[in-house]
């Protein structure tokens, strides 16, 4: 398998349990040069970087595998790690060196995985991390006897303080320079005799079948024999004869009273406990660690939930309020850039496409960057400190009511900012069913793109004071939460039935989050989001621009041009040539102070022209085409355009309606544009003279937006995550149908209660 050439970079893979400080060590080893991407077909984060101390002619690449408890995977994350170590992922070369990170303050369970990995037969180094924490807890670890017991080099360190990292990095570099060396095969599991015999039998078969990975055969045989899923997950990979052999071996073991499921696990833990006993000297630690003391408050019967709600509130306040400040700057920058582009080139279609299609399109994504960054900052800090596990611990009861895990809570929380990172966060969920259910309901949580839509509709339709308006907004968020939980319950009952596997949630000791790690996380994830969403939204905006601009009816432009020129001539009888009219307009636009009556009138004509052209465009025709679908909900063709455009991205509703109602290019988050649009919507009348935007219409529209799947980026991410079109299409269909039905119900209940 390994077609090692002198050009190929030396590959060291970094692996270990979750919460062992692996990411901190990875950052320390690779500095800021690491790249973050995805494995083909799944959005499991692929992080790799060059070893900082490695030289140009002897490059060393470090690949950071997802945190793993064992080589029998329970989640997508763990499966990727296992597949790389077993050389089953074609895109990753066979590792030249394996670096196992062990949390010294949790030695026994970490040794369980470390011994599994050492048995794989790769050259292996052990990074004995968090020795400072172990010492503070009263455990002195003798790294030399640990090295002797494991048969591989052991490097004591504290990745968070940097202690011992340099020596480790140098050793990796020196090993890479020395080239390959023989590895003495090792076995750590103390197996019952008959089990050991059966395992060796299968090992022999595997060596014959897969000679290129012979050194893995012993470990693979052990897994095949004791892991229920190892065979089932790869029925094509293992020949039927081998599968038969494994099943027969299991039957024989069962007959002789050996539990093949637990024998190797028990044997390995027995050895791990013995090693731990031999290498640790108790020096007497505190009765209760700092972490235990924090937990007594944070998971307290009363304080726990209160602190939890407080953290959520802080998260929301920062997303909806603090983020508004940098958001304002970005909007200003985008506006300035659009102005500069539009001034730097002659007016025309290309100019319009660049300013309204490209700059405004990219800008509409970039304005959400502060919110996304803040959300990730919070989530990274909560994850890195160890609080996330406590949040799942506190919320598990609520989630279990709808058939999900506490772990599903985190993706749903993320979805308040944006469903995309929320859906990406589902990859730690163990079962396929639970992961799918979480993906299917995550977009029902009201994301930040719905906020501008709610804001403008509440301003236009809902009377009463700030309290009623605030209550309406809260109601929309609650409706999303109830909808998500309800649908999760329904899916678990019907479509994606299945007993969830037992919740086994580690509550790791609290750590002081390292700013470098958090900021790194934030940047990695935010830029991934930007790249992905940016490309999709950019494309859609260009498409929308074409739909809203063509076909062009020269007649409309000419008619308004004549009207404008007549206005100018009425006011200034001396202007009789096209040049004079153009000069007059330029002079008016360039004048200081408030615009005069004439300029206002001319601008009004510009806006009417834009509206008229939109009505005539493909987008306008589309609006009228879909009108019959939305008429039962009380929506007219203008709202139809807004809704159809919103299927690209929800926030597009605001800018589209601004164009439809000739309110100028009111930006989604721009306060003046929004309230201007709301004022204009209030004055909109039906043919019979009644108001269009009544409270009932407003509520109906908002309910539609709560439930409808209107986000191309989310559809694209769900497609990637589930690796098929089946689920995103199903999600789109169920959400849109649900939105229509509930909007319909809202309208008729509203009318029955006396609304209009």
């Amino acid at each position, binding site marked *: 398998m390994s077609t090692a050439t002198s050009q190929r970079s030396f590959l060291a893979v970094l692996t270990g349990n979750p919460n062992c400080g692996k990411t901190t060590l990875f950052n320390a080893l690779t500095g800021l040069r690491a790249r973050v991407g995805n494995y083909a077909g799944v959005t499991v984060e692929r992080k790799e970087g060059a070893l900082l101390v490695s030289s140009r002619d002897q490059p060393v690449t470090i690949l950071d595998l997802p945190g793993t408890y064992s080589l029998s995977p329970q989640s997508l994350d763990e499966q990727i790690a296992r597949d790389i170590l077993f050389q089953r992922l074609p895109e990753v070369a066979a590792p030249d060196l394996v670096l196992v990170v062990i949390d010294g303050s*949790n030695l026994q369970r970490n040794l369980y995985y470390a011994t599994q990995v050492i048995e794989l037969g790769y050259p292996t180094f052990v990074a004995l991390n968090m020795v400072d924490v172990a010492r503070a807890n009263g455990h002195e670890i003798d790294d030399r006897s640990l090295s002797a017991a494991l048969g591989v080099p052991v490097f004591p360190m504290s990745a968070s303080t940097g202690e011992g990292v340099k020596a480790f990095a140098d050793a990796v570099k020196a090993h890479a320079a020395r080239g390959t060396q023989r590895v003495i095969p090792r076995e750590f599991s103390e197996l019952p005799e008959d089990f050991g015999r059966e395992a060796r039998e299968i090992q022999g078969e595997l060596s014959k079948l897969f000679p290129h990975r012979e050194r893995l055969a012993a470990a693979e045989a052990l897994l095949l024999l004791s892991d229920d899923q190892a065979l089932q997950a790869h029925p094509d990979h293992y020949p039927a004869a081998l599968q038969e052999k494994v099943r027969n071996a299991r039957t024989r073991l069962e007959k002789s009273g050996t539990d093949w499921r637990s024998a190797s696990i028990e044997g390995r833990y027995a050895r791990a406990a013995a090693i731990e006993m031999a290498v640790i000297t108790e020096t007497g630690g505190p009765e209760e660690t700092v972490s235990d003391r924090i937990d007594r408050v944070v998971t307290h019967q009363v304080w726990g939930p209160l602190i939890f709600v407080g953290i959520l509130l802080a998260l929301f306040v920062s997303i909806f309020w603090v983020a508004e400040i940098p958001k304002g700057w970005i909007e200003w920058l985008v506006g300035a850039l659009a102005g500069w582009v539009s001034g730097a080139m002659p007016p025309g279609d290309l100019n319009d496409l660049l300013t309204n299609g490209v700059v405004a399109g990219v800008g509409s994504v970039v304005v959400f960057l502060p919110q996304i960054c803040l959300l990730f900052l919070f989530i990274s800090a909560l994850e890195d400190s160890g609080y996330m596990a406590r949040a799942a611990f506190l919320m598990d009861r609520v989630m279990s009511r709808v058939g999900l895990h506490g772990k599903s809570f985190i993706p749903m929380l993320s979805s308040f900012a944006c469903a995309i990172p929320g859906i990406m966060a589902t990859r730690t969920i163990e079962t396929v069913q639970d992961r799918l259910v979480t993906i299917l309901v995550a977009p029902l949580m009201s994301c930040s793109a719905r906020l501008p839509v709610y804001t403008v509709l509440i301003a236009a339709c809902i009377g009463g004071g700030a309290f009623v308006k605030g209550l309406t907004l809260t109601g929309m968020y609650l409706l999303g939460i109830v909808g998500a939980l309800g649908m999760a319950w329904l899916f678990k009952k019907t479509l994606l039935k299945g007993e969830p596997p*037992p*919740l*086994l949630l*580690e509550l790791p000791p609290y750590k002081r989050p390292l700013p470098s790690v958090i900021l790194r996380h934030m940047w990695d994830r935010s830029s991934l989001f930007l790249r992905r969403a940016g490309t999709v939204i950019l494309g859609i905006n260009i498409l929308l621009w074409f739909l809203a601009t063509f076909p062009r009816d020269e007649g409309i432009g000419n008619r308004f041009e004549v009207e404008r020129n007549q206005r100018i001539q009425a006011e200034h009888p001396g202007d009789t040539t096209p040049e004079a009219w153009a000069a007059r307009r330029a002079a008016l636009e360039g004048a200081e102070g408030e615009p005069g009556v004439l300029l206002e009138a001319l601008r009004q004509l510009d806006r009417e022209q834009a509206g008229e052209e939109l009505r005539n465009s493909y987008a306008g025709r589309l609006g009228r085409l879909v009108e019959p679908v939305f008429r039962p909900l009380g929506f007219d063709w203008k709202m139809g355009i807004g809704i159809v455009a919103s299927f690209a991205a929800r926030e597009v509703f605001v800018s589209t309606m601004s164009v439809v109602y000739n309110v100028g290019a009111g930006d989604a988050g721009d306060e003046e544009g929004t309230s201007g649009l709301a004022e204009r919507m209030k004055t909109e009348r039906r043919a019979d003279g009644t108001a269009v935007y009544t409270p009932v219409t407003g509520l109906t529209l908002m309910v539609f937006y709560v439930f409808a799947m209107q986000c191309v980026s989310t559809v694209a991410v769900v497609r990637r995550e589930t690796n098929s079109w089946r689920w995103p299409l199903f999600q789109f269909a169920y959400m849109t149908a649900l939105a229509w039905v509930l909007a319909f119900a809202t309208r008729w209940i509203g009318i029955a209660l006396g609304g209009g």
Partner: protein
Amino acid sequence: MDPRPLSSLTPGSKGVVASIQVPPAHRARMLEMGLLVGTPLEVIRFAPLGDPVEIRIRGYNLSLRRHEADLVLVREA
């Protein structure tokens, strides 16, 4: 003393796992996390809503649901 379900113990009580009656398909990860027959454990607390339960085994803290804790029998020390 007869073994009792883990879920019936009070916070602070200690014991040793006597038997695990979780169905085989769901038992594997439990075992791999170090919850085996013969493992000493301490009950730390129950979550504010009564579920899940947090225990301490092999020097670290793990939480599991009552649903499984009912099926883990513990001989109290």
